[in-house]
């Protein structure tokens, strides 16, 4: 998957800086996405199919949105050195609350959006407080909230509920040229988060906290506050994903999140994008790349009608392999070409 061109870092600062940039997985994963697309195009066309048709491109993009939004949120918490396993149930709950609040009426849309985001924010806040305040390991803390949400859902809902008015459904189905409108939602969120990560204090503090909480704290960073905010951001993204899915389903679905395994899939996408699971390194761009890779792979699998069980095998291999490659890069610090 990689071909090494060893140590360029020896030749002076400039070269080192260059290597620093090139060895950035965020670059690699996009190259990988490009490669996969190319590969898919070749294979599919070889089989007499046509890969890069407008509808197909639209579908690939469409499939990026839900996972993309959630993975972006997950990126925020992972960067900060935390984790969120509750996203799957939160997204399900989100779709239900959205659909029930809208209840088929145009007038309720704004209100529903607000309610969903508030709910998501609250859950994120709870996660953050449990992790920082009670000092429960993020893994267990969010697993716990996941269980709690699950109970809430199963106790309250018995199958899809509520209905989404046509105007809002357009978010799920309309497209401009080959671009689904929902992709613009994803793009907007991505840009916002990118700005937060790179251009705000919160962002700097997230990287610092994830990189070395002790050092960050000594430098006067409010590490707890940072972690909490990261969790809130994450949950807000999940809320956005829930709204999108509600628009797509036209109703709320209690298993929208779990059947798609968004909890583990999102983490997979994040690390695929080269973000360090331990935190402190990585970012939005890489995660998007990871999501695109997964989406394109899925599309190729579809075209070649790969056995669904075998798909899982391939997914597993891809994830492990990718992370192994990032780790090697990080150890070597030398630029690599990924195909």
């Amino acid at each position: 998957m990689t071909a090494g061109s060893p140590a360029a870092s020896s030749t002076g600062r400039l070269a080192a800086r260059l290597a620093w940039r090139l060895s950035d997985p965020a670059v690699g994963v996009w190259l990988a996405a490009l490669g996969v697309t190319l590969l898919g195009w070749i294979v599919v066309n070889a089989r007499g199919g046509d890969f890069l048709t407008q509808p197909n491109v639209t579908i690939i993009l469409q499939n990026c949105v839900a996972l993309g939004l959630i993975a972006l949120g997950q990126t925020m918490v992972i960067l900060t050195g935390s984790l969120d396993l509750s996203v799957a149930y939160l997204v399900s709950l989100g779709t239900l609350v959205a659909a029930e609040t809208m209840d088929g009426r145009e007038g309720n849309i704004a209100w529903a959006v607000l309610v969903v985001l508030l709910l998501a924010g609250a859950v994120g806040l709870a996660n953050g407080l449990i992790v920082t305040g009670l000092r429960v390991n993020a893994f267990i803390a969010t697993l716990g909230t996941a269980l709690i949400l699950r109970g809430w859902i199963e106790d309250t809902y018995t199958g899809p509920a509520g209905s989404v008015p046509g105007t809002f459904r357009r978010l799920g189905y309309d497209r401009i040229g080959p671009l689904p409108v929902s992709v613009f939602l994803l793009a907007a969120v991505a840009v916002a988060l990118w700005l937060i990560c790179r251009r705000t204090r919160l962002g700097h503090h997230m990287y610092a906290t994830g990189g070395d909480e002790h050092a960050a704290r000594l430098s006067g960073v409010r590490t707890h506050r940072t972690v909490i905010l990261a969790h809130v951001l994450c949950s807000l993204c999940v809320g956005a994903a829930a709204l999108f899915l509600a628009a797509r389903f036209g109703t709320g679905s209690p298993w929208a999140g779990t059947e798609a395994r968004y909890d583990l899939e999102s983490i997979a996408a994040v690390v695929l994008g080269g973000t360090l699971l331990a935190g402190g390194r990585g970012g939005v761009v890489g995660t998007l790349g990871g999501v695109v890779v997964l989406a394109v792979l899925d599309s190729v699998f579809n075209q070649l009608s790969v056995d669904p069980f075998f798909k899982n095998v391939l997914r597993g291999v891809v994830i492990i392999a990718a992370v192994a490659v990032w780790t090697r890069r990080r150890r070597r610090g030398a630029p690599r070409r990924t195909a």
Partner: protein
Amino acid sequence: MRRTSVVKRTSSVKPTIAVKSTSPAKRTGSVLGAVLLAASLLVSCSSDAPPDGSPSAPAGSGAPDDDAGREAEFFAQEEYDQQLSLMGRSPEGPEGRPWEQMLIPEMIPTEEYALPEAEAADIHLCFSNAGVFNPWRQVGMTTMEEEVAQHEEITEFTVIDAEGQDDKQISDIQELAGQDCDALIVSPNTTATLTPAVEEACGRVPVIVFDRGVNTDCPVTFIHPIGGYAYGAAAADFLVDEVDPGGKILALRISPGVDVLENRWSAAELAFEESELEVVDVEFTDGDPATAKSVVTDAIQRHGGIDGVWMDSGATSVAAIEAFEDAGEEVPPITGEDQQDFLQAWSERDLTALAPTYPTFQWRTPVIAALRVLAGEEVPEEWRLPQPTITEDDLESYVRADMPPLHYAMCGCEDMPGYPQAWGG
């Protein structure tokens, strides 16, 4: 307007129309009434909960993937009555080929979809599958593939598997609609959520829906067995007959909130209420045998014995039987499903048991229907398949020692060339 039957979301409104859908005329009348009522409901509580004519879910599936999108409390008298009446009817169609039979069909013309001579021998069939996430669907999928193999006029058969994800299946349907399919078969993962996608596809290609329905009448035909009420009632009535009055009944359910399973239970609940039997426990097993076995063991201990076991599906029935054996108890009358392990346990131990089915042979029908549509032959607007129940009398004809434990006997596949290897026999 097939799909406008009443969905009660607010208990204030009760369905007022009792239907004895015998003659088409009466039925249309009733349907008309239903429409009006639905309309009136739309005012009081706008809900696009799906039709209750809507089909059932794969039996034995623990995963909450099965759904027709409605509240559990919901119980539709009309649909209930109709299903029970249908159980008694003898279907039209060729003897011994239940997958081609139909109940109270309302045939519709399909000339508009007929293929020109040139293409008639070169058919591209497409299928958007909800997934193969449980044995029932795997048996079904195999059956459909074998059915396709029997028709050489089908030159291409494209299947896309949604892996139980609504979002993915929506895209899948869009993708297939974009390809050059002659007909599109859809087995929806969720009724409510897939409606828009199916409607979109209807415009491009003749669509055939089976197993679960969608909240639109745009598909050419909708294929499904009689339904969940009939299933649940059959099992309950059996216990009412077999268990002495005052007997303690344990009800084992897969998981809450799966509409079809809710239907089965609500029908059973009704039957038990009218009987002298006492339902001492209603437990959820997540379709996991280990859980089921534990639950049953606990129940036996707590109530000092159980006199009858009602199940909303077959996945855990053998575990339940074993629980009684391991507790050194006589196995009471029990209901299961047409999975081989249960049937074999039943015949070996010669239990008092019953196996209502949600037949997997329905996976053959969509292919047949598609070919008819593309040939311009008429098909029923709603293709109701018979829903046999296995009793002591015909048990032996379904027991197949050579088949895998999780194989569904009601696959109607014994006569197919690939049998039994293709099904793992």
